[in-house]
């Protein structure tokens, strides 16, 4: 009894904040704050466990035979045999449609690399000129960008749809990619790149100018390499966001599904085409693998570099 009490006390001690100076007396607020701290720790624990629960269930069931559920009610039981047929079923499902999983993969790769690259490149260019030059309109574009970030322009989708149809952009993969980098002077990415350029001194540019270097040399050979780490972080985030994007395809590119939209369609039509939960979960596993790998290999850079500032117009 005494032992278990000591164990609990040692766990509770571990839960308390580390960077804490010793005090003589505890006020009621201090005790209340400590209780809340411990309560919040349990909420964090519950949150973390619950986040793990569903992917584990997905992974276990992606390999299970549906018959296993009939005699084993433990939803987290290990699969008795690894049923690769579930994964094969994902590939055969798309044979019912005009597109297969290889085409979806190509669309995913193109839209997660080329489109974000163009978009981030032009955002970087905008951030550079606004942060470093006092050209005509610099202040206007900066303030306009901030206003656009804040101003909610609701319901322009219908007009955008009509314009996209008229210009041949609607349901056209190539046109969708090349018209992506519109208005790079607004948004979180712009603010991050703007802050990165603002932090760099102008002395480098002056030295290059003295040696005869021009506007483009200063940008491409001096400042662009210096902000490459920031660009890489934005590229990784943009890659993951574009890889996981699916609603945009549902609206603008219905004939060119990527892997994520393909999985949405798979989930939507699975029951009608006699596919069960196990096959659907196998599909989700396939879709999740690339982003999990990329996230895990770049997590440190993302969490350390991604800081957002304020919205001062």
């Amino acid at each position: 009894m005494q032992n278990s009490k000591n164990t609990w006390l040692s766990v509770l001690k571990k839960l308390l904040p580390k960077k804490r100076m010793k005090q003589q007396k505890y006020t009621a607020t201090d005790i209340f704050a400590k209780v809340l701290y411990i309560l919040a720790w349990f909420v964090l624990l519950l949150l973390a466990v619950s986040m793990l629960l569903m992917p584990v269930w997905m992974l276990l069931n992606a390999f299970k035979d549906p018959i296993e559920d009939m005699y084993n009610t433990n939803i987290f039981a290990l699969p008795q045999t690894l049923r690769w047929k579930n994964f094969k079923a994902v590939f055969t499902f798309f044979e019912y449609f005009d597109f297969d999983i290889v085409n979806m993969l190509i669309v995913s790769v193109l839209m997660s690399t080329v489109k974000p690259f163009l978009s981030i490149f032009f955002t970087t260019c905008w951030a550079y000129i606004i942060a470093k030059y006092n050209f005509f309109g610099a202040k206007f574009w900066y303030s306009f960008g901030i206003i656009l970030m804040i101003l909610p322009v609701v319901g322009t989708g219908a007009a955008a749809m009509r314009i996209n149809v008229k210009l041949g952009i609607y349901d056209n993969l190539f046109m969708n990619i090349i018209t992506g980098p519109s208005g790079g002077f607004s948004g979180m990415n712009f603010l991050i790149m703007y802050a990165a350029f603002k932090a760099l001194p102008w002395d480098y540019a002056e030295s290059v100018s003295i040696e005869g270097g021009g506007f483009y040399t200063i940008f491409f050979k001096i400042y662009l390499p210096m902000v490459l780490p920031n660009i890489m972080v934005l590229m990784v985030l943009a890659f993951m966001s574009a890889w996981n994007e699916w609603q945009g395809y549902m609206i603008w590119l219905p004939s060119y599904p990527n892997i994520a939209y393909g999985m949405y369609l798979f989930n939507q039509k699975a029951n009608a085409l006699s596919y069960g939960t196990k096959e659907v979960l196998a599909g989700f596993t396939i879709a999740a693998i690339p982003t999990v790998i990329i996230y895990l290999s770049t997590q440190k850079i993302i969490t350390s570099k991604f800081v957002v500032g304020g919205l001062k117009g």
Partner: protein
Amino acid sequence: MKGSTKRKWKESLQCYSLVLYSLILFCIFFFTTNISSILLAFQKVNPDGSTSLVGWSNFKEFFQQFSADKGMMGYAVKNALIIYVVTFVVGFIMQISLSYLIFKECYMGKLMRGLTMIPSMMSGLIVSLIFFRFVNGTALSPAPIESLFKHFHFIDQDATLNLFSEKNAMKTVLFYLIWFGNANGLMMIPTAMNGVNSEIFESAQIDGCVNMFQELFHIIIPLIYPTLTTFWVTSFAGVFMSVGPLFEFWPNGDVPKTVYTMGYYLTSKLTQTNGAVDQSAFGVYAAAGLVLTLIWGPATFLFKWFVEKLGPQEE
């Protein structure tokens, strides 16, 4: 003086040449789309794709749809506001307190922070679809969450949760958005907290600022306030554009009125049904957008002004 103006012109030309392509695209897609949307609010799209002027009738139809028997617009606006307020308040309290724990290097903090990132790793779509399959059951195949709850005797053996029924839909969506919406906050807020100079904490401790509330309200929140306001203002601005997990939870379009939102209305009207997008309701769509922009635009700037006023004043 003349030389400096000439140099500024040259510099301006060079600057614009670097971003010319994106500037042209912006002019086409921003200005043309917005002007066209304003015009569309006063037009009707005919079956052949042409348009004809209809005056204020789109606006009239939009306001008529607020009455329960004529449309879902009232529910769409009300639900969007409910979802925003609840997720904002509960989400903020949760994210700030959990971020504080991570920042203070609590027991197993790094591991738990890593696990909370799972929704960011796996994609929101996959997480919401797994969640749906995890909590949604039928009479023949009960939901895994029901089996789990029955195993631990949280619910009766013959009970069913019916989490996606009209009655429970809003609670389920709110739970999902709050619980799974923490990933971004728990990535950025602790990073912002780490940016606070440790010397400030040390001197504050000497001054008697020692418990969680004092550290949060007197040091951390005032110092990371610009980051917080950025999230608050951008999420406030997106109230009527946020779709939530409605397409994932009701993939066949049978979204109950108790959870139908403006964002869902605006997105679903642009999707294909039977291989084509129905443009007949585009006029009302544009009218709804114009009315909401005229109301929510100033409201967002007012909100920004308010949260900035509420926060610490710069000296």
